[in-house]
């Protein structure tokens, strides 16, 4: 168990700045997720913490100890990779025992057996102990790989997209399992992924990374409901947030060629009090647009269903007003059809306003 601290961490590969002056504190016992698209610098960050890469600048602390000069073995972190790196001709037991047999540890056979038994119980793989790893399914292999990390009781777990090679069903199950595992172990998890749903469902806190820079750190609730900029707003949440270019005119926001004219209220007025520009970006999540057959009181706009994505539990309606297309969530009970007319009711109190030039939250 340990906290992790990164100070002004920078890593370049030739001209490319993979990690750009990063400051980060992961608390002891926290499930921390580093989220970003391919090439954001997530894996490099993880490798810097593990000691598999040397930073150009900056400091890495594990458990308040400055570890820049320590090699990976001494840092006492465990790495779980995207591709399960198990010894193929060894049994599950041998794979789990392997890290314990290291000369650094000097454990007795009894102690080793006890640890292996504990870990297999937590991960529900007792029945697999004597199987060779080549005969395991993908999910079983990833459990063993996680088991091999746990068995050492390291200070920190570093996980690099461990679920991305599993099929959708298994990924969903493993998400819940990892969340529960973290709860049971209480250790520090540092988890890297490009999949926002993994970050949202598992993380205590999430850092959104792009082009080597952290854009926002917060709880899933904070990054979803108070995104700091347009990138975070777009990256978090599915279906993706609607973003409209709007012109501010008196107490209204004008979208398109006056296709939508939204009246703004107290909350937005106070937000815009010190905002002197004429334009802004209005962000509104699809679930914050209510769809009805009858016109509602405020900000209710007539629109046609352009196309529809039926998800079973809900329908994603792609609605059209002249040349503006946006998404709204509707209940399947509404039985919407392509080409039909509905009213899109925009709940401005749930909207997000961004500066057109800086893309930052107003």
């Amino acid at each position, binding site marked *: 168990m340990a906290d992790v601290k990164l100070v002004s961490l920078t890593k370049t590969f030739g001209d490319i700045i993979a990690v750009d002056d990063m400051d980060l504190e992961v608390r002891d016992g926290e499930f921390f997720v580093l989220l970003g*698209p*391919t090439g954001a610098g997530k894996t490099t960050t993880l490798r810097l913490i593990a000691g598999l890469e040397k930073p150009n600048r900056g400091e890495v602390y594990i458990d308040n100890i400055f570890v820049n000069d320590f090699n990976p073995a001494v840092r006492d972190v465990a790495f779980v990779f995207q591709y399960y790196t198990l010894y193929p001709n060894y049994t599950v037991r041998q794979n789990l025992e392997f890290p314990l047999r290291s000369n650094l540890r000097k454990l007795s056979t009894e102690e080793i057996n006890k640890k292996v038994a504990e870990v297999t119980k937590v991960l529900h793989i007792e029945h697999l102990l004597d199987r060779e790893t080549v005969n395991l399914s993908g999910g079983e292999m990833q459990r063993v790989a996680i088991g091999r990390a746990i068995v050492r009781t390291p200070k920190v777990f570093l996980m690099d997209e461990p679920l991305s090679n599993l*099929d*959708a*069903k298994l990924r*969903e199950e493993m*998400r*819940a399992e990892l*969340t*529960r595992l973290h*709860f049971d172990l209480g250790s520090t998890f540092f988890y890297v992924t*490009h*999949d*926002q*749903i993994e970050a*949202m*469902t*598992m993380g205590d806190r999430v850092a959104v990374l792009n082009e080597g820079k952290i854009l926002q750190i917060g709880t*899933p*609730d904070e990054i*979803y*409901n108070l995104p700091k900029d347009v990138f975070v707003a*777009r*990256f*978090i*949440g*599915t*279906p*993706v947030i609607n973003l409209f270019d709007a012109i501010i005119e008196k107490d209204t926001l004008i979208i398109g060629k006056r296709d939508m004219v939204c009246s703004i209220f107290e909350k937005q007025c106070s937000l815009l009090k010190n905002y002197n520009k004429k334009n802004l970006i209005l962000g509104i*999540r699809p*679930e914050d647009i209510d769809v009805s057959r009858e016109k509602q009181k405020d900000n209710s706009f007539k629109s046609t269903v*352009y*196309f529809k*994505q*039926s*998800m*079973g*539990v809900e329908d*994603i309606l*792609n609605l059209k007003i002249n040349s503006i*297309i946006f*998404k709204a*969530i509707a209940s*399947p009970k509404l039985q919407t059809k*392509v080409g039909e007319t509905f009213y899109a009711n925009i709940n401005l109190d749930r909207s997000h306003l961004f500066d057109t030039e800086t893309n930052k939250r107003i």
Partner: protein
Amino acid sequence: MAEIVLRNIVKRFGSLIAVNDLSLDIADREFLVLLGPSGCGKTTTLRCISGLETPDEGKILIDEEDVTLKRASQRDIAFVFQLYALYPHLTAYGNIAFPLLTQRFDKKKIKEEVNKAAEILQIKHILNKKPKELSGGDMQRVALGRAIVRRPKAFLLDEPIGTLDAKFREEMRAELKKLHVDIGATTVYVTHDQVEAMSMGDRIVVMNLGVLQQVGTPYEIYTDPKNLFVANFIGSPGMNFVNCRPIRDSSGKLVLSLLPSIDTSISIPEEIQKIIVDKNEEKKDLILGVRPEDVMLSLKKEENYIKTKVFVIETTGSYNIIDIKLGNEIVRVRTLPTMMPKIGETVYIGIDMKRVSIFNKEDGNSIMNSK
């Protein structure tokens, strides 16, 4: 524009039957998705339609013409494997024009066709740029342009967006669906991802081990799965399954006894009681299937609710998934984002019995009448 008909298609590879007696009517302008796990026969089916494979038995008709023995090049359908592979040395224009160049169209005609495709995809302003100058989304649009510029009778797509980042996949799903609405060509799309199938398909064909399991609209397949395989494959988070058996309570009324580790019976609507009696399922082992959104969760005790504890809680922003333990089984509940019990906290769950599915445990088939 094309109507595609498959009649009793069988395709074998040695002793393996990849596609087993498959019949399908794909309507003109339809977006049909072939969905199933690897090895279910979906790609083989697509390859038979394209002409890359010849079926061992059965017939394939395109616009009423028997094309079973025709070569791929004679069928006028576009097969797209990957959408994102562009030629790096060519401009967007060059990439889109490429299939037409190989077909020796004249320059003026090519320009016309490329412009039309660019118009639909709203990429006219980037036609002179090279792939490395383009954003990911624009690269995808160029790749799509290359596929649609030939204006084939039908599109056949084999997991075209499977290897992209999650976020990007979501965008591409909407983009592909929009494109289909705009150009209206018959599309057959193969995937193992139920989200792709649900969000794009007009109809979905669920396959397993070469055999068709169910054909229907996304809504039909979601709300009325014909068997356990389909029920399990569709939906995220997936459907909950609880072993049960219909028994008579003290007043002689039919109730469902939940098995084996839960000592609870739940009452069932008359409609379902009637089905159980009519189909002679009384006292048989059944499986109750409940979607996570059809489980109600309460922090207070309520009538007909079962007492349980929170095992895991997952937030997504727009909803939460709360895992609870019912006996030894995990049951997943979809709730509003404001519902935030703690791990280990006592909660009560109820089941919306009007929306459940019930399966015979032995053969896995749904006993429900079609909704």
